[in-house]
């Protein structure tokens, strides 16, 4: 049967299943609808634009678009521009190609009342401005859905806007600095050629004036950031690197103007521009990687439900979480997250408490059990009575604690910052001393000033300012290649100084999902039936058995089963060929009247056919591959390795023994983990914490360096400073290795620039600095630092 392309989504299907519509073929009615809509709107050139890309056929299930018109939505996501127009930020789902962006923008532009629709192809975020008098947001959303995409809102937070603005500002300043510096380079070529081969004074003056013209915007526009930094530094009574850069370059600038006007000596405009440009790039690298705590809290805020359904008599009403009083009856449906603590008064079902405990096993709740806020109902429809209001519920407590932890995060002072303080003040002092010495050792004021200034110029802050950013940049790139993402450059240094590493058990040391470690088969049975039974459940234990079956049994496949039922907190029961089959825990077996001996700390899955126990599977959450080896490496590099877990003692100790960790703290709450890290801080430790779940959040926020696993929860990744993309503990040891090597390199770089200065500064103080030495010194010290940093590639293979 020949395959035919659907005329909308371009996926291929055999011709007989397609919907025939004249000359066109469609795979589904959704595609057909969109195709005709685009034709009617005159947008069919979309298909020629999209080329070979295929689209996913439209899905039909959407929440009602009228939700987008509610006041609550409006208050949260919609902003009003100064012209009285409304603006919303959306994420568009289903964008595959540039043509999709084109189509969405065109379709929206065609709508009456849509003033502007701008879609970012890279991150699929859209900004839509519309006139509320002629169109509603729900209408816009309906249009996006009608053409086969979906949209959901996001908070374009102030921080994001500000970060973008700051980045753009840096781009502009760097553009000016780069342009001017590059042009000055070729003027400088003429000047140096003239210096060696002879040049008339008037040509020299022309070149100087041209450089003056180019250096001015670099110093005062691009370098404005350093003036600002120096000013704020002085206000806080600190001598900063910025101050040295500013005094050095400003003095060189003024001195060069003096030279140009009075036509004697050599001007240093090119050095001024070069210092500012290089240091500006270094600073930009820092800004780029700076992380914003407020952004993180924003993301967490999104995980908190804003509204809950409460039962008033017979009617269910949604109210704002803050309006809920103690004693209100709250309705929670399957898939919803609870926002308020309470006690079940009717209904039963399973809850996912992994947010708080880290353990993936669902907890079964029935009458009288406690509901903890932040947990999610898996399959339960429950009415519960609130025992606390929102502000005192577990979830908001957790958020408050997190907020505090992030605000109080200790900052380890960076070596370069500490050094530059002393360096800056020493140089400024030496320059002034040199000036006075020369003046009283009978010399003209002119000559003394020139020598004094030359000390500052020669003490080129360039190498010192570049020492850290260049080395960290190389370290960052090296990490990224190995799937280790450092979110900010400063963390490399902190991590290199760490003395203690704290690991979460589930998901960090172990794989986070149970695996069959031992199977006992009492009687032969049809594996296909068991396969079907376990694949009907999403419970981690069933998944583990399923995975084991597929791994060990060849050609195992699903057959048909009847009346498959999942019994919460017990297992599954079904009927195959008229025989009852049951798979689950000891409780289920007991209820079926099958005797089992259930003494083991492992999770056990029993399988019975026709009330006869035929197989027993023991499952366990196994440590990751090479975990033992990695922890051995960590211990050898003189780190104190500690394991924290919310799990019970026995399980914790067994895993710890397997991977070789001596210090274990089990049965900890999220707060307990954070408290442990705080106490380690008090003992003077610099703590690295690695975790993956929401239950580790507080501890992650409290640690000096937080490391998240790449497949961990979004929030954990957001809070963390380092993300390990391949989840392995080997990456963790590599992260330590890279950061230590990089830190070593930073120290070397600083050493190089200090040695350099200790040679050139005495020369300058003695008045021996001729332009040639100055020029060589300027660029050579920077080159040395950059070249040295590149060595990390050989150092760390």
């Amino acid at each position: 049967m020949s395959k035919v392309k659907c005329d909308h989504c371009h996926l291929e299907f055999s011709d007989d299943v397609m919907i025939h519509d004249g000359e066109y073929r469609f795979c589904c009615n959704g595609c057909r609808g969109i195709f005709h809509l685009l034709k009617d709107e005159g947008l069919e050139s979309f298909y020629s634009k999209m080329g070979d890309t295929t689209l996913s056929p439209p899905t039909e299930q959407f929440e009602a678009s009228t939700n987008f018109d509610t006041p609550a939505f409006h208050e949260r996501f919609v902003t009003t521009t100064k012209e009285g127009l409304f603006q919303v930020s959306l994420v568009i789902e289903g964008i595959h190609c540039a043509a999709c962006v084109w189509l969405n923008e065109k379709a929206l532009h065609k709508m009456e009342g849509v003033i502007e629709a701008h879609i970012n192809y890279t991150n699929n975020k859209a900004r839509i401005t519309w006139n509320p008098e002629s169109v509603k947001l729900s209408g816009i959303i309906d249009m996006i859905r009608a053409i086969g995409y979906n949209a959901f809102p996001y908070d374009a937070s102030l921080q994001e806007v500000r970060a973008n603005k700051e980045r753009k500002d840096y781009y502009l300043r760097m553009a000016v600095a780069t342009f001017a510096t590059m042009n000055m380079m070729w003027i400088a070529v003429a000047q140096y050629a003239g210096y060696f081969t002879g040049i008339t004074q008037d040509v020299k003056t022309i070149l100087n004036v041209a450089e003056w013209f180019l250096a001015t915007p670099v110093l005062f526009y691009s370098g404005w950031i350093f003036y600002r930094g120096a000013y704020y530094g002085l206000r806080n009574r600190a001598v900063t690197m910025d101050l040295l850069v500013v005094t050095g370059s400003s003095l060189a600038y003024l001195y060069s103007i003096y030279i140009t006007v009075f036509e004697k000596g050599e001007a240093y405009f090119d050095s001024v521009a070069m210092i500012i440009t290089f240091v500006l790039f270094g600073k930009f690298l820092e800004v780029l990687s700076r992380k914003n705590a407020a952004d993180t809290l924003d993301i967490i805020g999104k995980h908190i439900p804003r509204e809950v359904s409460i039962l008033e008599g017979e009617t269910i009403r949604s109210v704002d979480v803050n309006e809920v009083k103690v004693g209100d009856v709250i309705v929670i449906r399957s898939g919803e997250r609870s926002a308020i603590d309470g006690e079940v008064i009717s209904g039963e079902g399973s809850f996912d408490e992994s947010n708080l405990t880290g353990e993936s096993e669902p907890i079964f709740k029935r009458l009288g059990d406690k509901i903890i806020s932040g947990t999610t109902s898996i399959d339960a429809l429950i009415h519960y009575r609130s025992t606390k209001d929102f502000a005192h519920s577990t979830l908001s407590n957790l958020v408050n604690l997190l907020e505090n932890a992030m605000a109080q995060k200790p900052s380890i002072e960076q070596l370069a910052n500490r050094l530059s303080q002393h360096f800056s003040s020493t140089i400024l002092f030496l320059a002034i001393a040199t000036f006075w010495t020369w003046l009283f050792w009978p010399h003209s004021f002119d000559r003394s000033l020139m020598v004094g200034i030359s000390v500052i110029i020669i003490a080129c802050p360039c190498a010192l300012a570049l020492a850290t950013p260049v080395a960290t940049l190389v370290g960052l790139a090296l990490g990224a290649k190995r799937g280790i993402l450092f979110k900010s450059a400063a963390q490399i240094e902190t991590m290199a100084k760490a003395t203690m590493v704290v690991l979460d058990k589930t998901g960090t040391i172990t794989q986070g999902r149970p695996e069959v470690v031992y199977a006992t088969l009492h009687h032969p049975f049809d594996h296909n039936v068991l396969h079907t039974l376990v694949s009907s459940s999403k419970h981690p234990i069933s998944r583990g058995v399923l995975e084991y079956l597929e791994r060990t049994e060849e050609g195992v496949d699903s057959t048909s089963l009847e009346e498959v039922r999942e019994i919460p907190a017990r297992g599954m029961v079904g009927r195959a060929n008229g025989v009852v089959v049951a798979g689950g825990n000891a409780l289920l077996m007991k209820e079926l009247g099958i005797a089992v001996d259930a003494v083991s700390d492992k999770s056990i899955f029993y399988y019975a056919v026709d009330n006869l126990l035929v197989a027993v599977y023991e499952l366990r959450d196994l440590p990751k591959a090479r975990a033992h080896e990695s922890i051995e490496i960590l211990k050898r590099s003189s780190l104190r390795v500690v394991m924290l877990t919310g799990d019970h003692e026995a399980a914790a100790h067994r895993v710890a023994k397997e991977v070789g960790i001596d210090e274990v703290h089990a049965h900890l709450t999220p707060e307990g983990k954070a408290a442990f890290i705080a106490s380690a801080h008090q003992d003077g430790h610099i703590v690295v914490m690695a975790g993956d779940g929401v239950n580790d959040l507080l501890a992650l926020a409290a640690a000096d360096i937080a490391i998240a696993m790449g497949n961990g929860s979004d929030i954990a990744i957001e809070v963390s400073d380092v993300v390990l993309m391949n989840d392995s503990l080997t990456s963790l040891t590599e992260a330590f290795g890279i950061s230590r090597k990089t830190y070593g390199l930073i120290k070397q770089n600083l050493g190089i620039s200090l040695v350099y200065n200790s040679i050139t500064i005495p020369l300058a103080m003695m008045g021996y600095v001729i332009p040639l030495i100055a020029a060589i010194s300027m660029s050579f010290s920077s080159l040395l630092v950059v070249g040295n940093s590149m060595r990390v590639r050989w150092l760390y293979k």
Partner: protein
Amino acid sequence: MDSWVIAMMLGASIFLGGIALAAFMWGIKNGQFDDETKMMNQVQFDDEAELNDAANQQRKQEAMNKREYKPE
């Protein structure tokens, strides 16, 4: 060779370079480089229809502005 020739050539080339820089900065401020992937694909969507659409959008915006400034 008179030195004014050097002065003139320097001035002219810096001026021309300055125009290019100004255009680039205008582009940055305008947000043309915000979305690198879209920017690279922009050339595919650059025909008459796009021009019409852009003009249409501008008309809409102007109509809005006029309405706003109308004294009540």
